[in-house]
């Protein structure tokens, strides 16, 4: 089977690295020494942010797993799953995490000696796969473990994408020829080359996939030289890599248009712009630090008299988001950075006012004008009304 196109230029050779690791563990055991596995600690307390770099980077903290009676099960599982992944890399087959879970079960079923390793449910095997990635400091895609590419539906009259296929063939996709269908990027930014037919003025990432579709249908991309994209909630790796690619290759101003609430700010926008603590080792290739927050801004609520709601403290999701916002203001290096003070101010506003205002509320401004929302967006961009 042909080799897959790499996600990035990887400095290490995974099978070789894995062998070195196994060799070291075996040697330790032969010497009655406790083998230790170390993985980057992927949490907020090990995240650093430098506005010049633009995304969250890992610190020195590691999660150490030393062999003892309690950890022997985890280590045995790590080595067991690593072997499966190495096999996949060797033959070039790819799988999702769920498929890997069932493959592990299948192998265990076929060998009664392996029975103690059996996974009760998928989160158990997922955490082992994540640990292996963090340990080798490689992306799961580099271990041939792919996630479903959700979101990222893109509309543009100017954008031409050239994809290099696994067999070296090239596919050219002119987005203007797709009719009403969007282009949806796969999570392999390295195999894509972007070209603009005409100068592209900006890229707009809309939180709601539905609203992005409405804008496109009403002719947003016809009237504006732009790229219009639906994020579909928390951006997937595919969306994040795709935004990074647009930033790198086209160097166009990028704006994010979403709800005004704590969840959107800290979970969706922050992840798109600077990555997340859980994906520390991959933020470099999966964040677009240039993207700006176009709205809904607190001032817009007043200016356009947008309908908004009190956060229901009884709603666990919303209450948790607000509670998290307070924590984030104290501990998240991204929001603590001076450069992002205006974004942190929005969080403070939300904590104080306890309101939320949805992106679709722009449709209330002039219900008779079907492109009023587009007009406001363009006006805001021109006016520099973004953070």
């Amino acid at each position: 089977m042909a080799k897959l196109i790499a996600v990035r230029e990887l400095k290490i050779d995974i099978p070789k690295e894995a062998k070195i690791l196994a060799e070291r563990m075996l040697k330790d055991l032969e010497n009655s020494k406790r083998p230790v596995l170390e993985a980057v600690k992927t949490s907020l307390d090990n995240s650093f942010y430098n506005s010049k770099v633009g995304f969250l980077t890992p610190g020195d903290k590691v999660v150490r797993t030393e062999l003892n009676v309690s950890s022997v099960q985890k280590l045995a599982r790590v080595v067991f799953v690593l072997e499966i992944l190495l096999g996949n890399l060797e033959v070039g087959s790819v799988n999702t995490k769920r498929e890997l879970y069932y493959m592990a079960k299948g192998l265990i079923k076929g060998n009664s000696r392996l029975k103690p390793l059996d996974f009760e449910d998928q989160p158990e095997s997922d955490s082992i796969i994540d640990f292996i990635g963090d340990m080798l400091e490689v992306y799961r895609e580099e271990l041939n473990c792919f996630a479903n590419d959700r979101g990222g539906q893109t509309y543009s009259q100017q954008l031409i994408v050239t994809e290099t296929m696994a067999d070296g063939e090239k596919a050219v996709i002119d987005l203007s020829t797709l009719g009403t269908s969007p282009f949806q990027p796969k999570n392999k930014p390295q195999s894509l080359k972007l070209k603009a037919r005409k100068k592209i003025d900006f890229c707009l990432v809309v939180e709601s996939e539905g609203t992005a579709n409405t804008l496109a249908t009403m002719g947003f991309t016809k009237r504006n030289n732009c790229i219009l994209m639906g994020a579909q909630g928390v951006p997937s790796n595919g969306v994040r890599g795709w935004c990074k690619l647009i930033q790198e290759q086209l160097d166009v101003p990028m704006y994010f248009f979403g709800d005004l609430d704590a969840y959107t700010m800290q979970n969706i926008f922050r992840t798109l712009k600077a990555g997340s603590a859980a994906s520390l080792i991959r933020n470099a290739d999966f964040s677009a630090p240039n993207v700006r927050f176009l709205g809904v801004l607190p001032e817009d609520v007043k200016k356009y008299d947008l309908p908004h709601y009190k956060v229901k403290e009884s709603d666990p999701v919303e209450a948790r988001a607000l509670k998290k916002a307070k924590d984030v203001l104290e501990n998240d290096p991204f929001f603590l950075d001076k450069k992002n003070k205006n974004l942190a101010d929005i969080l403070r506003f939300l904590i104080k006012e306890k309101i939320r205002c949805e992106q679709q509320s722009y449709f209330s401004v002039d219900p008779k004008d079907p492109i009023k929302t587009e007009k406001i967006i363009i006006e805001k961009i021109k006016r520099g009304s973004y953070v």
Partner: protein
Amino acid sequence: MSKITKSSTAEYFAKNLQQVGFSSPLKAVLTTLKEAVDNSLDACEQAGILPELIIEVVKIGSGSTKNTDLIRIVVEDNGPGIDPDDLAKVYGEYLASSKFGRGQCSRGQQGIGISAATTWAQMTNAKGVQVISKTKNMRKAISAQVDVDIKSNTGTLRNKETMDWDRPHGTRVEFALDGRVQLNGDGGLLTYIEGTILVNPHMTIKYKLVENDWVTIERVSAVSPELPEATLPHPHTFKLGEFITHATLFGKVPLSKFLKTGFSRISDQSLKDFVKNGLPKNLVEKPVTSLSEEEFKKTFQAVQATELMAPSTKSVLTVGEESLSKSILRLGEVDFFAVVTRKPCICDFKPVVVEVALARFKTRQTELDAPVQLLRFANRVPLQFDKSGCAITWAIESVNWKSYGLQQPKDSLPIGPYIFAVSVVSPFIKFKNASKETIDASEELVAEIRLALIQAGQKLSRHIKKEFKEADLERKLAHIEQFGPILVESLARIVGASDARKKKAEEGLKKLLGRDSEAAIADLEEAESKLLAQKKKERQKGIGSDEESQAEEHVDVISVKATTKKAAGTKKGGK
């Protein structure tokens, strides 16, 4: 205006039997059995006889009321017997009691229960109770049917005859009444009998419940509990009305004499203190019969305002940790148990003693997540209804059992195959209702019960911790056996290592994990030695037989050695 009529006590109770435990066919059977057994045990104790009870509860037909069976309840004892002249009073007259308000820790108190049972039988089956009784002075036993004459609240004897009875003395009562039988659960007959067995180690009992076989449980203590002397009430437990009524019992005596002889803890000094606290001096020697209500009130207020010594705790009776620990083994095969008898203390100016027995049974595999079986006792009588309002339940729920190794949902009874038995003994126990089902929860009483439970919980936790450490060690050893070889094999496969390297790595791994299991063994040994120390202490108090505990100690030592040996096999050359 309608005519005011006066009704007899019997009439009142006949109309309100639900107040005294006859609110359903189910409760009727249980209450009848309970009242008969209480009387038998009390009588034996009064006479210093070790009780031997024979109980039979069987269905003999269908009841006259809807959805009931006709149930025969027989309770026979080897007690002193009842004087033929008293038979009618005991079984057919309400409030005819030798125990009322006497300040003794007897099971029965007022003299309502057995007459109520007779009334129930009479009302549902048109026949009172069939009694056979013989005292040691009688050559022949007397047999009669006792009915309650409801209009006059007196008992009447029917079909009285003498008969031969092979017992030197004793009483046998037989009721036939409408009811329903439930064996297990909170209101079950078996639950009642087990509870009675637990707190009466000196009792031998033979019983047959419905179609089950006869069961005999022998006594484990040859000592009849010594009934403490009756105690006078403490004035601080009285209300004004009671105080005045109490005074009328004393006839024309000076107030000072009434106070000193009618109550405990009132001395000449107390009388002086009463005067200081507002008792008019001229009342002290005035006869109580001539005191006005106003004067009684002044006296009462002065008494309440004066600090008095707490009542004596001598009047309470305990089962004792030793007897309790033997008795608990009569309920089934136990894994382990803990018993605590608190020192008598004063709660709400009444002497109280709390005893707790907690045990885990091998043979009682209750449903998973079922709460512990709770046995509540007041003056050694099992309480079986309305547990949620009881001081004992409150106290159990207030303890954090998780810290003793038991599962416990928030503010609830803990979970597991345990029996939690809590006994409260006091000459002046306060019930929430006349049928003696729940102990009124005063703060002081709940706190005292709680302390007893905590002590027992700590003892129990030693057993549970040892078990937990054992499981931990077992799990760790299993882990080594299960995962070690898999880890080494996978590593060797990835590296392409030789068999020799594989073998060496396996040995290395065993050494490493052997060190870990040594730590687990040390933990277990610590837990075991703590438990042994506790058992030793208990043995000094006579809890657990010597033979058994010696054997136990032996086994413990062996088991530690065995596990150490087993682990040592995996740790050759370790350390």
